[in-house]
């Protein structure tokens, strides 16, 4: 089966992918990650074996790009002064997500996929290669950790 014109994926999912990436890596790196996500998707698109859950497939790629950004940051620690400079221009809705980016990888991924991109736990489990239960648990743990951090 031929997948639909690629533009249809952009029309349907570009907004959610960008919201997910803003949540997952921050506003500053979101645009580059967006470009890389859709470039990878475009490259792989004609060889796609089945086109039944293109949304989950796209977010699998977006999640991988977000993970790449975090790994690159871990290798290249940002001086404290820079962090403050970068945090300042973030509008309040995006800075809500700052503490999420400090969580362990799985909790971060589950919370951004669930609450920034509105994916169901079934899709999140498929994207992360874990069970639905594990996805729900990671979300609960993540939210608990955020409450602890934010309500001293």
């Amino acid at each position, binding site marked *: 089966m*031929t*997948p*639909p*014109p*690629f*533009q*249809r994926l*952009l029309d349907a999912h*570009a*907004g959610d*992918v*960008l*919201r997910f*990436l*803003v*949540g997952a890596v921050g*506003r500053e790196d*979101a*645009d580059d990650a*967006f*470009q890389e996500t*859709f*470039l990878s998707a*475009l490259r792989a*698109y*004609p060889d796609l074996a089945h086109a039944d859950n293109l949304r989950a497939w796209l977010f699998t790629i977006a999640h991988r790009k977000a993970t790449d950004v975090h790994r690159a940051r871990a290798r290249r620690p940002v001086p404290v002064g820079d962090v403050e400079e970068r945090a300042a221009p973030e*509008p309040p*809705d*995006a800075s*809500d*997500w700052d*503490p*999420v980016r400090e969580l362990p990888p799985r909790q971060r991924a589950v*919370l951004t996929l669930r*609450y*920034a*991109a*509105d994916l169901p736990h079934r899709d999140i489990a498929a994207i992360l290669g874990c069970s639905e239960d594990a996805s729900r648990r990671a979300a609960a743990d993540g*939210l608990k950790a*955020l*409450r602890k951090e*934010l309500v001293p």
Partner: protein
Amino acid sequence: MTRLTPPTADPTAALARFAATAPADVSYAFVDSPVGTMIAAGTDRGLACLGYEDLHGGADPLLERIAAEISPRVLLAPAKLDRVRRELDEYFAGTRQDFDLELDLTLARPFARKILAATARIPFGSTSTYGEIAAEAGSPGAARAAGGALGSNPIPIVVPCHRVLARNGTLHGYTGGLHRKQQLLELEGVRTLGM
């Protein structure tokens, strides 16, 4: 924080950047013209499709056909169709008689490609007949098949199938509707005998 709400994010700029740089196999754009909105689609080889938007169910089925028959890497990238848009504007403004565009005839079958190639040689302001075009394409006597091939011309106007008439000089048929055939011929100063 009690609740995580999705961050606001407007993808317009990111989409524009993607459309300008992504290596699509097929780029398309909507082109306004005096004969209606058209969907222009091109590949590295040239213009592959110029479809009337109000026909055959609109843009979606046309783009699906392009995805199936050329490549699913189809992107809305108007800037890549700038030259097509400019030449069409010039044609409709009366300042251009010949299109200077490469064509990609992937959407046409082999027989239709020969018919389209013969049709592309009919000069501005002239007409031919289905029989003459068939003979020109190396299939004398195949007037009816030529009519069929032109009826599914993927690149009307640029491949001027509107210049092909029935032997008795009537308009006969047109992929975009007879009123458009008449309109295009009038624009080229051709007097027609009607439908």
